[in-house]
């Protein structure tokens, strides 16, 4: 048993997966034992940086595939993105946490827990992304839910507990249904693949997916779509998402939006690839297109009624996940390319927005949009960065989101012009809502609260540390919008083909 396990697990030091998964796992245990949170903040940053370095080494060394873990063109980029945003968020978190702790909103014992859970969360996401076994994938997504539930409830306010409970119950049911779907996939594969571990290894399954029982695969996909779709936040299964984003600490909102939703969608896409390889099973595309469109529409209308700044951008995340799901539902190399690009851009820009929102709510002392006014006057640098980030997420050129949205719509037009119409309408409605909200927050006379908080300065160094991730993300999104390197384009195209 132990002998067979050692061949399955990445235990060699020369294997990048050993470091990618090992760093956050042992980091989490180490941080749980570290009593001083001042040290924990920097240890957290260091571990995240080391994980990022390990992820970067994947470009050079690609580990051999085992029955439990594998790296292919698709997940290598998500591993990189996750490690990168994980690292920048840990930087932002170092500035954010210092402020929260000084304002006595978080106690030292909470912070110890927070840092440990942060690394545990990164571990579960990286585990989900590198898992070859669909059972391990499921366990990892479940564990990611657990760690984030704990972090959403960190503030211990009634709202935070309610949000965490709602998130917990809804996503538990969601992953429960996803497990049922996973069991059905195994049952569909078992007559072809035989009993045991190979019948759950994705790389083995995809080779013979054409021979799986098509009816069982169709039924399974419905369960998987509803199950993992709950975690992606697709309407009408999105109810947990705005609350969880709004009530947790802001660095967690950033990784929830920027990373966890991607991971859930990644799980769904792996199953979509399996079912698409089976010509007799149902077409996954139309279902995904329908869910995507409903998310875009619901979120775009909901944006107008939001009074809470974090909730506003949570709904914007639902909209963007809708666009990405729609793009992958359309399928074809170009639409998949657009979906992948949009996934990347949304991760970068949305987490940048949450970094800005975190600093804004700390400066203004409130999350109410009505009380936040004149940011460009009171905090020029933060204010203008926020303006740029919101314009980017609304889809204005020259930022990367514009390019990916343009690609989604133009590729849809080429295939079925009528399908592009609802997406365009949804995008326009969203655009209006975001610009309208932005105007009030960014311009005009600074509000009373904003001016008051100016007196409570944070040291310049810490503020700069908090600002670096925001600027870095926006610069990357801008560069991607203006110029994508040929190598990256070729690679995205290759993945787009892989996705079918």
């Amino acid at each position, binding site marked *: 048993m132990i002998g067979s396990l050692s061949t399955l697990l990445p235990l060699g030091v020369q294997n990048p997966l050993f470091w990618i998964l090992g760093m956050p796992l042992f980091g989490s245990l180490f941080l749980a034992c570290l009593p001083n949170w001042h040290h924990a903040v920097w240890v957290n940053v260091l571990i995240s940086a080391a994980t990022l370095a390990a992820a970067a080494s994947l470009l050079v060394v690609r580990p051999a595939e085992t029955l439990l873990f594998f790296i292919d063109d698709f997940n290598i980029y998500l591993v990189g993105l996750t490690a990168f945003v994980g690292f920048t968020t840990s930087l932002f978190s170092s500035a954010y946490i210092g402020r929260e702790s000084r304002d006595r909103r978080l106690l030292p014992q909470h912070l110890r827990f927070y840092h440990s859970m942060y690394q545990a969360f990164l571990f579960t996401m990286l585990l989900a992304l590198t898992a070859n076994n669909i059972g391990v994938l499921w366990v990892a997504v479940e564990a990611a839910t*657990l760690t984030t539930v704990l972090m959403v409830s960190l503030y211990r306010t009634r709202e935070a507990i309610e949000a965490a409970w709602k998130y917990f119950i809804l996503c538990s*049911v969601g992953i429960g249904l996803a497990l049922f779907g996973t069991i059905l996939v195994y049952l569909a594969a078992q007559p072809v693949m035989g009993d045991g571990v190979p019948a759950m290894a994705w790389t083995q399954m995809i080779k013979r997916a054409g021979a799986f*029982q098509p009816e069982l695969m169709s039924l399974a996909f419905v369960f998987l779509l509803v199950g993992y779709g709950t975690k992606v936040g697709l309407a009408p299964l999105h109810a947990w998402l705005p609350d969880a984003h709004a009530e947790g600490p802001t660095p967690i909102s950033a990784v929830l939006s920027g990373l966890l939703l991607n991971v859930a969608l990644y799980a769904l896409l792996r199953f979509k690839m399996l079912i698409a390889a089976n010509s007799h099973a149902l077409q996954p595309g139309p279902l995904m297109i329908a869910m995507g469109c409903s998310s875009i529409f619901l979120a775009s209308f909901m944006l107008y009624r*939001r009074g809470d700044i974090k909730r506003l951008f949570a709904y914007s995340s639902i909209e963007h996940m809708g666009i990405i799901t729609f793009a992958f539902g359309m399928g074809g190399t170009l639409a998949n390319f657009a979906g992948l690009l949009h996934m990347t851009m949304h991760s970068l820009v949305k987490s940048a927005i949450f970094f800005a929102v975190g600093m804004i709510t700390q400066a203004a002392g409130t999350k109410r949009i009505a009380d936040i006014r004149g940011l460009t006057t009171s905090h020029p640098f933060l204010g203008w960065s926020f303006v740029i980030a919101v314009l980017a997420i609304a889809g204005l050129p020259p930022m990367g989101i514009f390019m990916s949205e343009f690609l989604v719509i133009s590729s849809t037009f080429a295939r079925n012009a009528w399908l592009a119409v609802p997406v365009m309408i949804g995008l326009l409605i969203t655009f209006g809502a975001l610009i309208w909200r932005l105007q009030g927050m960014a311009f005009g006379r600074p509000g009373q609260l904003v001016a008051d908080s100016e007196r409570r300065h944070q040291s310049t160094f810490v503020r700069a540390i908090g600002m670096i991730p925001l600027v870095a993300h926006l610069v990357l999104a801008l560069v991607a919008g203006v110029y994508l390197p040929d190598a990256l384009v070729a690679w995205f195209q290759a993945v787009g083909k892989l996705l079918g």
Partner: protein
Amino acid sequence: MNPAEHLASFGRISYDTAHLIGAVILMMSFGLLYQRRLTAVIRTYSLQAMVLALAAAWQALVQDAPHLYASALIALLFKGIAVPFALNWLVRRLGIHRTVETALGIGPTMIAGVGLVALSIVLVLPVTASSTAMTRENLAIAMSVVLLGLLMMITRRNAVTQVVGFMSLENGLILAAVGAKGMPLVVEISIAFSVLVAMALFGIFFFRIRERFDSLDIAYLETFRGERR
């Protein structure tokens, strides 16, 4: 599988026993919907978990898969004994209302439950035409248990009954997993779920959650959503 072969699997002891145990689990699911008192709900859940342990042990014997005994043991010790004990303690400790508060009456819930069972049979039996009879029937029963658990979560107000609904849904999932011949990772999945359940109980205790959070007071909802001006 042709009808003759299908008929032949009736009367075989391995199939009949699995079928019987599955049916008892399904009955317990209806029992959960029917109970009006919290202690009775918890007792019914405990019984269901114990029967599930029996189902897992039977599958371990029939499939010759010793790792399923571990699943059976988890179901028996954790879900059948520890969880009900903890739930009873919670109800006493937090002074939770002892009668089950329903969002939908018992009668309509039972009718909806029967409808869900019919739905799962109609869905599962045709799509598993080429599987063995054991897989087919087991899957149909497991899916019914999952859907009934979902129904219970929707129609009960109290946080404890909601969690019991989730755990009974999970019993259905484990039933499906042990019935899938040769499925790996079943034990790991049982453990992962146990952690989830332990978290839920811990959450109820730690945050003193009594009600499910859907207060009928709209004013409260508005403050919560940050929409009140």
